[in-house]
């Protein structure tokens, strides 16, 4: 069964991001929940080649509900 070690970064907010291992790969356009907040996935890249069934991904996210000015 594959496993995905995922580095999540939201460049719109301060803070260093989140690293989680999960059984499914995130997909561009998908809305995920991190720390109780909803984020949209805007980019998924393979950071390094997989080791066996473990994949290493870097995912850029942004708040799913953008502020309206």
């Amino acid at each position, binding site marked *: 069964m594959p496993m995905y070690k995922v580095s999540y970064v939201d460049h719109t907010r301060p*803070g260093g991001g989140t690293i989680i291992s999960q059984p499914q790969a995130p997909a561009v356009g998908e809305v995920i929940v991190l720390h109780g907040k909803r984020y949209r996935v805007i980019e998924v890249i393979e950071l390094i080649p997989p080791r066996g069934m473990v994949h290493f991904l870097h995912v850029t996210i942004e708040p799913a509900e953008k502020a309206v000015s």
Partner: protein
Amino acid sequence: MDASLVRQCILFHGLSEQEAKEVLALGSEVTYHQNDTLAVQDTPADKVFAILEGMVEITLSARDGKRTLLYLGPGQIVGELPLVDGGPHSANARAIYTPTRALAFERQTLLNFCKSHPHIGYHLMRNIAADLAFKIRHHNLSAI
């Protein structure tokens, strides 16, 4: 323990089921509540943690307060730097969800085991090095 919780932790990557069981037997499962402390910056470090459930916030203490470096969720390792270099904790670690569950390993017990079981020890140390490398890559991409 749920096998899927073990599989998601990179610490056990490359180990057979039997080898993983031997390593698991060295640790103890600990449950934390929100705001419980796993590690305090600049204090002696005698444990390394593998997070099974919940989330841990890693912060650096500064003159103007604490700065969040990173959040670590299931499958991640906390306290690997002191395990490798023998120094104090380089940052603070606290649970931000209830429950946050982790496997806690005594540093010296794990090091002794690696020495007496070099095949397993090679995998454990390689996995810890890979985890550190991933965190550095994550940090670099966060800074762009």
